[in-house]
């Protein structure tokens, strides 16, 4: 794989309401992870940390040409650990649980071409900046997203829907896991954002776009996003990772040189 230079920044805050930060994140280029634990007391924070630890282990032996396979294996290992952890508690207390969402971004080698492989489980999100505008890549595994997809509610109604916190897939779920994968060309992502719903639930996409567009340093951008989420109420743990691919020259959108040559030859010019 061609060596790609990544600049990145990450930030996390417990917020103003919770006492425990159940979010965990990993910055181990080219592996990036945000996990948002659930389960309240002593379950969620440990579950999200287990995901991060498994990806930390992956980062040490990561083979970009087997990216999708290795990420899927890592999800499976994290799932097994969280299930074991949950079962040990459930043996004593039926109904006890631990679970976590996860969004993952890794660089992969797709037949010699470096690309972004993204993966999602739950309602943490992956966004990109492309052509100066924000686009959500991941599709939430949530009840409201399914209602939106089915055309039953609008995106605006989803923000206040009573079931907006109900997610349909997560690590630690007894039904097993089914992550979504996304494969994007490197050049189609000017800036990548991985964040927990403590960011997206507190501030509008427009504000996220403004911050990602206006703050050049990814470390500052991640800080600003998390601080904005806390300033907006901080009702949940907020975590953001911002990644820039630097030194990558985008393909020319218009091949003027080639057209010039073509024109000159048609006009019997100086070629």
């Amino acid at each position: 794989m061609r060596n790609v230079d990544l600049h990145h920044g990450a930030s996390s805050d417990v917020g103003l309401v919770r006492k425990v930060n159940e979010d965990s994140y990993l910055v181990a280029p080219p592996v990036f992870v945000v996990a948002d634990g659930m389960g309240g007391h002593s379950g969620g924070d440990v579950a999200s940390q287990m995901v991060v630890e498994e990806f930390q282990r992956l980062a040490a032996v990561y083979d970009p040409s087997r990216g999708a396979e290795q990420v899927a294996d890592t999800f499976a290992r994290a799932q097994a650990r969280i299930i074991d952890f949950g079962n040990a508690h459930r043996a004593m207390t039926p109904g006890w649980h631990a679970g976590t969402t996860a969004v993952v971004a890794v660089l992969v080698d797709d037949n010699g071409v470096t690309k972004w492989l993204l993966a999602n489980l739950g309602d943490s999100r992956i966004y990109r900046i492309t052509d100066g505008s924000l686009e959500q890549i991941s599709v939430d595994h949530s009840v409201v997203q399914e209602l939106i997809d089915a055309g039953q509610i609008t995106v605006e109604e989803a923000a206040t829907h009573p079931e907006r916190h109900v997610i349909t897939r997560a690590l630690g779920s007894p039904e097993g896991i089914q992550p979504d994968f996304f494969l994007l060309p490197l050049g189609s992502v000017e800036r990548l954002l991985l964040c927990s719903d403590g960011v997206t639930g507190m501030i509008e996409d427009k504000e996220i776009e403004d911050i990602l567009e206006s703050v050049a340093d990814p470390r500052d951008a991640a800080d600003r996003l998390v601080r904005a989420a806390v300033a907006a109420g901080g009702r949940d743990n907020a975590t953001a990772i911002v990644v820039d691919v630097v030194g990558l020259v985008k393909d020319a959108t218009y091949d003027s040189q080639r057209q010039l040559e073509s024109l000159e030859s048609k006009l019997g010019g100086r070629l």
Partner: protein
Amino acid sequence: MSTDARFATGDWYAVVGDHVTVLLPGSQRDRVAALWDLADAGATADAVLDALVSGGLSTLDHVALVAHGDDSTRVIVRGAPTATVASTSGEEIVSATAGTAWAERLVTGVTSIRVTLTGDGAADHALTAGIARVSVVEFGTPSAAPSAPVEEPVEEPVAPVVAAEPDPEPEPQPEPEPVAVEPEPEAAPAYAEPEPVAAAPMSFGEPEEDPTPTGETPVVEAPVVDDWSDRDGQTVTGPPVPDFDRPPIPGQEMAPEVVSQPVASLVFSTGDVVLVDRTVLVGRAPEARRFASHDQPHVVTVASPQQEISSTHLEIRPGAGADHGSAIATDLGSTNGTVLAQPGLEPEELKAGIAVSLIPGAVLDLGDGVTIQVTNP
């Protein structure tokens, strides 16, 4: 000494294994998951200690460790925690002197140990193998106050919920006012607390309910899922809806994601040859979305200096149902469209989103001089 253990809720972590219990401040959560793996696997005190200090002592200001051996008990405290160890030879308080790494005792004939981390609450919740958030932990028979029955604290958080029922006894009581007024102040503290410290005993306080020892893995029945709610009152999980995320193209049966035999071979004007044994995406910079790890599409990038080809322009995949065995092409809403020339038919423009079955010999023109010829594999 019996290994019967209790705790009072707090913000320290108790990582409780069969032999070793480690107590860490809330700020040390990074170490908790790894230690739990060790403790749960039945690691010895030395192995746990090894893992504990592997991250360096300078970042570990406070910690306590209690390890139960066959005939002796080992107690280590560093920083704030203090341990009161009662044994057949008397009572001793173990605490680290400032400037030392830690204080350590190996005590035989221990009857009880009380480790105080923050505060001095009554340790009246049963502590079992796992992870708990604690302020005080006790092992063995308590020396001072008799321990409250285990069931007592369990009822506490439940009781206000019952009391919060709007009309507990409206039928026998014609005037509901005194009943309706009373539950409110009782219910308020349970809900005013945003962080469910009070809910913790629900996780740990009912050992009698399920006598299965830790380590055994009971089958998790489906109803448990319904109870899979976040105690923080925020994110919860519902059952997955597996069929939802891949809506089929209208009028088209769902295709298998990957077929064992390729249904066609695509010969690109660029010289690439691609077998259609799964979804093939063609474009100037194609993006593949929402696939599973086992059905990653083939992504074919073609140069388009005049920008006539869209970034993700065309999809070709194995057909299903009536189209089984042939390849199906769908224009994905490209800007400049796709022209299909089937053998013996007039060339036609593909309609965006409408799938068309390809027959061998068909030629797809994406623009910018890029064509794809469909042949038998």
